């Protein structure tokens, strides 16, 4: 069963209309690039960013694999 709300067009159809709005595309590009540039600036301040990111991902995966135990600890 589709989770689409009644009256809302499917994504490909809605996207076609939105993509034709050049102002919207310009504004979104500006907003997302501002966010990305700020992120890149902060990332550049840390020397071993990639290693830190990978260590964080491993910690997250380990916690998810052990979720049952972790949830009991939290309670």
């Amino acid at each position, binding site marked *: 069963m589709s989770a689409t709300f009644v009256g809302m067009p499917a*994504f*490909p159809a809605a*996207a*076609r209309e939105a*993509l034709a709005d050049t102002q919207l*595309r310009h504004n979104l*590009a500006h907003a997302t690039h501002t966010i990305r540039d700020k992120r890149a600036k902060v990332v550049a301040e840390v020397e071993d960013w*990639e290693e830190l990111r990978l260590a964080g991902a491993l910690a997250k995966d380990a916690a998810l694999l052990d979720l049952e135990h972790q949830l009991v600890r939290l309670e």
Partner: protein
Amino acid sequence: MMGRMRVALMVTCVNDAMFPDTGRAVVTLLRRLGVEVDFPEAQTCCAQPMVNTGYLEEAVPVVRTFVDAFEGYDAVVTPSGSCAGSARHQHSLVARRSGDPALEERVASLPPRVYELSEFLVDRLGVTDVGAYFPHRVTYHPTCHSLRMLGVGDRPRRLLESVRGLTLVDLPGAEECCGFGGTFAVKNADTSVAMGADKARHVRDTRAEVLVAGDNSCLMHIGGMLSRQRAGVRVMHLAEILASTEDAS
């Protein structure tokens, strides 16, 4: 030493059907570096289109065929970050779904030996200067799967920087997706084309003659746009640039 390593070329469906020169370039390059390369003819698809679309059970025989074709080799080299990513990150999911412990065991052993071309050259062979010559202005697009799934990092750049005569220029917004995304391009054609148009504009801004990447699927998408724009930029796979020499460039 390298001559004794048993290496297989996994050419991939897209290359087999559309870009056979890329497969030839991998063989030319590896032979020049002293590596004997086999081409197991039993190989078919890596199963990624099925897995990405949710057909895990249908992917089981495809993964089985993959393992049958390649498990006897020390290394499997493929000119595609996407297909290498599929073998390394998706085959274990498919094997688990199969309910066949023997397949799971075989799959656990093979994928770590599957290398995207730049990984094989830099990590396994320990080379960045492959003796190539390519006197052109080039910009490099890091494809999503090579960047985000495999983490090839700066390996392709280091290989390109060692090519004699080549001028490598930075691509603005390089790490943004080109919009191809396999079946995404078919299901969401308008969004895919809009993303490709942004990428093509960035490529043109570099004034490069050649756009290079490690995946021909992405290059097919961006190259299709550039050719329709009569942009004067051609696309080439990394393997083809690395295979070029002064005698035949």
